């Protein structure tokens, strides 16, 4: 932590941009990429994220988008026909890829494991997801923050002009404007990796002290070349390893900016601006919420729209009258119809704490009906956690925090496929990722000592067999 602060003072504007530069494999190719860019340090508009190797299809899109960006910044936005803007949109967005199941266009939820759970490796566009949480815990807020951050990071992929006219816009239905300051930043590898990359960055910088050093030590440049060579060699090795490994990795090569890993202890710097995120108060009458939202969607007509509706019906945020069906249903239904109207570029995530509504099953069912997908988080109770702590005494990072139930999956459930799975998945929340894995009850080895005793007693209890074995061995010796 302290190291990051020191870095902030030292580095120039590049540091800020570096935070934005996405990609799961930052620690690996970051230094080399920086080095490559260093000589032309002033070029900040370049398609930085797009320069990743091995990305075939979106690269074309990148050029296209860059041209578009030039158009907009150069002259007027009207120069591009609107139809082209909206049709060209989804094909080139770095955060969009076809679903492996239905080949529908999908975008990431921001959490890799949740993406997998959805069956499409992401959010099919035009769909909504409701995350229910069954106790007073707040695990859902992590998913909402990661979802929001992912949108912002997608928006900034193309470098600095993403601030002006990026590719993604986030609409939050909440009064909590602090959300912008709480968004997690991209995970930048372990602490060691960060230190290494910082040192490399410092050394590669053209500063007085560095120049002096290089004069005093004439071999530094050679040293640097050697470093590069090593980095390059490692890169080669990585590539060959990748090609051997599974198809999944291949896909992450094709879509390098599809999803990112976030570090929930860090914050996204710089905080999103009003051009990247808009807030709408959900307490307004449904009609005005919807009209505001539609005007925002229209204003950002070439962007992917991510809608976030956090803590639905939380008693501290929503007045009691919102629980009346004639208040709530028009809002949710209107949101749904907007989603379907702009289905080629909208997704929606919502969270609700169901512990307050568990004795009104009809009410929750009515809410669930208006969402395409419903996933339930059920944090473990006290006894279960104690049991897990005992069972995983030696590996505390294996302790799961709760169960994940699936009630509905987007697209599949609409087709009539039954995707209901209860207690098949478990989640655990760590600093760098929210993991969802298959749930299995761990084996408790508390009666290890008992077992041993039993074993020894059993051995004692069967001398005849032992004799028999001995006779075997004597035979063999013979």
């Amino acid at each position, binding site marked *: 932590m302290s190291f990051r602060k020191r870095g902030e003072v030292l580095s120039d504007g590049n540091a800020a941009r570096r935070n934005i530069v996405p990609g799961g494999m930052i620690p690996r190719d970051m230094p080399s990429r920086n080095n490559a860019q260093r000589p032309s340090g002033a070029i900040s508009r370049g398609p930085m994220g797009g320069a990743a190797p091995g990305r075939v299809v979106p690269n074309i899109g990148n050029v296209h988008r860059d041209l578009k960006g030039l158009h907009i910044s150069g002259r007027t936005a009207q120069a591009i026909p609107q139809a082209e803007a909206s049709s060209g949109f989804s094909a080139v967005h770095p955060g969009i890829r076809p679903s492996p199941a239905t080949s529908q266009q999908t975008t990431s939820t921001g959490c890799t494991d949740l993406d997998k759970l959805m069956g499409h490796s992401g959010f099919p566009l035009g769909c909504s997801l409701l995350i229910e949480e069954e*106790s*007073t*815990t*707040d695990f859902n807020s992590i998913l909402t923050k990661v979802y929001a951050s992912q949108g912002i990071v997608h928006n900034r992929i193309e470098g600095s002009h993403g601030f002006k006219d990026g590719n993604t816009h986030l609409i939050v239905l909440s009064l909590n404007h602090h959300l912008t300051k709480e968004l997690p930043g991209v995970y930048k590898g372990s602490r060691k990796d960060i230190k290494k990359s910082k040192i490399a960055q410092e050394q590669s910088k053209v500063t007085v002290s560095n120049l002096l050093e290089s004069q005093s030590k004439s071999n530094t440049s050679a040293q640097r070349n050697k470093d590069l060579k090593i980095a390059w060699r490692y890169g080669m090795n990585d590539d060959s390893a990748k090609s051997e490994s599974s198809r999944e990795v291949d896909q992450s090569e094709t879509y390098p900016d599809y999803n990112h890993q976030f570090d929930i202890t860090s914050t996204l710097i710089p905080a999103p601006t009003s051009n990247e995120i808009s807030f709408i108060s959900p307490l307004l009458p449904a009609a005005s919420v919807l009209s505001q939202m539609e005007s925002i969607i229209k204003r950002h007509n070439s962007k992917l729209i991510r809608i976030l509706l956090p803590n639905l019906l939380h*008693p*501290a945020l929503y007045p*009691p*009258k919102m*629980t*009346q*069906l004639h208040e709530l249903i028009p809002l949710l239904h209107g949101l749904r119809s907007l989603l379907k109207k702009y289905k080629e570029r909208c997704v929606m995530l919502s969270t609700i*704490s169901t*512990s*307050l*509504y568990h*004795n*009104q099953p009809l*009410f929750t069912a009515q809410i669930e009906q208006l969402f395409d997908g419903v996933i339930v988080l059920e*944090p473990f*109770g*006290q006894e279960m*956690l*104690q049991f897990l*702590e005992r069972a995983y005494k030696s590996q*505390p990072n294996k*302790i799961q925090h709760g169960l994940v139930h699936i009630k509905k999956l987007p697209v599949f459930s609409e087709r009539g496929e039954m995707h209901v799975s209860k207690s098949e998945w478990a989640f655990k929340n760590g600093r760098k990722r929210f993991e969802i894995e298959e749930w299995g009850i761990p084996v408790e080895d508390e009666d290890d000592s008992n077992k041993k005793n039993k074993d020894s007693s*059993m051995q004692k*209890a*069967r001398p005849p067999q032992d004799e028999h074995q001995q006779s*075997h061995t004597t*035979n*063999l010796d*013979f």
Partner: protein
Amino acid sequence: MASTNNNPKVLLKRTFSLKEQSSLILCTDTMAQSSRFVVEEFLDNIPDEMPIVFVSFETPNRPKYARQFIDASGKTTQQLVAALQPYLPQPQEQAPKMHLVIFDTFNYIGSESLTQFISTIASPFVTILATYHQSIPAWRPAELQNYPTAIQLLQFIANTVIEVTPKTSIDEDDLDADLSRFVIPKNLNNPTYYITLTNKRKSGRAIKNKFLINSKTHDYEYVIEKQEPVTDESPEMFEGLTTFNLNTSEKQKLAKDQVELPYLEAQSFNSGGAIVYEFEKDDDYDEEDPYEDPF
């Protein structure tokens, strides 16, 4: 992660002396056991100089310990907030003292205004200690049929929930049945009673512990919920069931235990892959020949 292993008794002590940061402590009681003794436990543990504001819906009698007494009966929530405000720490104060606000009941505040009311009073330097009587039925208007009930809301908001239950020999179900008919058994509302302390951490995770409290001696005893031990099959279980003899003698049991089941054999990999060759009489084995190794 070590949180679940915390000493429950220490937690209870800290709760009673208000050292555990908690802005709303909720006591839920029933007709069988009042929360009066719990409130007294709090008063016994907190420092003497702490300002205590008592808000009363039920009694015009001012308790001895109350520095300020507010008669809330007949007041709307706005009026109540206005009456309370002068006794709460003011925002301009630099380092205000901890204040304790005791409500004798929250039953008379409707669930629709409850969250707003609590959020206006609550601040980092105020602890609210309130009781909710679960035996009093709650009325709620038709337009709030989907809104959570007051007790649900309170349990959701509260950082600490103390559920008071009597210590009686009567079965729980029988007691409920009796009380629902207003048949009140003897020896209820004792100074010795059980509480279930639910403590919510910052993350929202709840930890439940049960204690036996003696308010006379101020003794707290941690009660470990006993699990029903799984009873092994014993010969007595079959006694008198049938006319057949289903019993097993010790010797038979031992023999039964020694039977090696086929799947157990398959699981032992000790001799895995080894060629077991047994010589027979007719085998012709030449010790000189190095190639005639049966293995």
